[in-house]
């Protein structure tokens, strides 16, 4: 199952740092074999309803949210996700 790691205030919102997602109801493909990022994020929100509206806006990744899959930036929800992949979701941040 892909793992989703949450950072900064997403942890406060979700009440956890990490979520192992299970297939959401009505999904066409099981996340245990292959999926895409959109399905994984849908599964996350179904498990953690407090994240509804925080990561997704108008069907896209919300501005300022960064989603990395195994450390590589994913810029849309069609990016495929393998069963052992680690998805990291970061809220708006800055530094230097």
């Amino acid at each position: 199952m892909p793992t989703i790691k949450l950072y900064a205030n997403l942890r406060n919102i979700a009440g956890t740092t990490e979520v192992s997602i299970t297939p959401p109801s009505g999904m066409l493909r099981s996340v245990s074999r292959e999926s895409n990022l959109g399905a994984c994020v849908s599964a996350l929100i179904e498990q953690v309803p407090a994240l509804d509206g925080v990561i997704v806006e108008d069907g896209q990744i919300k501005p300022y949210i960064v989603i990395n899959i195994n450390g590589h930036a994913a810029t849309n929800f069609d990016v495929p996700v393998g069963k052992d992949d680690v998805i990291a979701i970061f809220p708006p941040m800055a530094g230097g």
Partner: protein
Amino acid sequence: MNGWNNKVLDIDLTAQTYETYPLDMEIARLFIGGRGLGACLLWDLVGPEVDPLDPENVLIFTNGPLTGTGYQTSNRFSVTTKSPLTGTILDANSGGFWGMRFKKAGYDVMIVRGKASKPVWVEIKNEEITFHDASDLWGMRVFALTEKLGQNNNKRNVLCIGPAGENLSRIAAIMNDRERALARGGPGTVMGSKNLKAIVVEGKTRPKIEDKGRFKFLLYESRKLLAASPVTSQALPEFGTVVLMNIMNNICALPTRNHQQSQFEGAEAISGEALTDNYLVKNDSCWACPIGCTRISKTDKVKGEGPEFESTWAFGAQCGIDDLPAIIEANSICNDLGLDTISAGSTIACAMELSEKGYMNSGLRFGRADQLAPTLEAMAARENVGADLADGSFRLASKYGHPELSMSAKGLEMPAYDPRGMQGQGLLYATSNRGGCHMRGNMVGPEVLGLPKMIDRFQVQGKSSFVTLHQNVSAAIDSLVICKFTNMGVAEEYFARVLSAVTGIHYDTGELTQVGERIWNLERLYNLREGFTKEDDTLPPRMLNDAPAEGPSAGRVVKLNPMLKEYYRGRGWDENGVPLQAKLKELKLVNLGV
């Protein structure tokens, strides 16, 4: 023209005299203030024949036409000098309150020349300038000295050096308002070489604004924009800059153990989340800042400002240390001694690698949090192992026969972004006029955070155009002088409008960016005149040849040469990185006799 005070304070420490004269407003128009004015003045005042620690080197303190107006973050100021660490032109800038107070005392620029025969401190109360004997203050640490000289954020502000600057450590910082720092490149060393312990300033006169109505409206709009940006209204106030630790680690671009690795197993323990959960007392802000990114942290031993991301990284991942209280304490010790945290941490890391490989016999080892505090004290005092480390990693590594183990560019230690995971950052470090520095156009925005838009961090072709734009905008902002975090919510066009409203001179976005380009080219010319060549636009061999073995940046090294060729061409320079006459003419640098 308004905004500027139109006044230069010129201090001769040798004779302990001073004079004031008008600011050249033609220069001010072209360079605005801050870093720009500093570069222009240094070009004329300090040539290649001057060693950075000679009395003939100068310290040029500058503010800008926005300083003290109350515009968002209009508190910052710059110091420009020739760096004793790198030999390049150096400017550093700081926040807090001192810069605003210096502006309200009635000055745009303070040039400090010569060398006092014995320690002095200078008091500025508007037009009254007094030289005081500092013999009994010499040796004092920053916190105690700042209090003794009467620091009061609302009235009287102290700028000073600690023992590190007195002992001419080449990584010494100038501290202001207790824990703010003009840190990189050794400005504190220059101040110490002049026997100048402190400059204390009082002043109340607000700068004049040309179009008050328009200014007020732009202030209101900027405040709304900052409140609407989730970065400036939520992320920075809640977590500060240390929040970058986990994302840099996630993408395998967090330099670890002197850049031997790019991921740190202890990153979570020293993250912004860990700091907020366990050691944060509150956030705080500089004068006229609605963002509030400053941390006030507390451990059993210290309470004070910071740490920032770079400092936490330098004493953390770079030294293989995951003990956050020890890191917070190391940051505080640096502030009290007047040391640059990035250079200090990275120099300790370099010593750790030299020692573990048997090239040096210091006993320093990666992961030894207990070694941080005593090593920093020894560095400031130049005692024992500290004598070797006091002058930065390049001199240290060179002494022990392995200069390639200094993780520096042009002698300035690189900060917390591994360029093997961010190609643009590699080009930035290699071409930065003051050496390995992220504040001259940080590529973390586009390459990691997607600000304003995500670009491929491994892409090489075309990357130089992003770097050039970031460098030019960064230089322009440094001339205003305001905080770059404002730019996270407010676009440059607003800065141009505010500058126009304050000064009465029309600037548009293109002209403002061109000011930045002008500053960048003049700094480049300064370094070329000092003897730097394109051979110095490089990175440590580890960055060019040794790829991380695993993780998302596995197999990657910095592909510098193709980026550099493209960069020189895009900047209007020849193949040796020398600005062409056409570019100098375009930037009006030819008019200045440059």
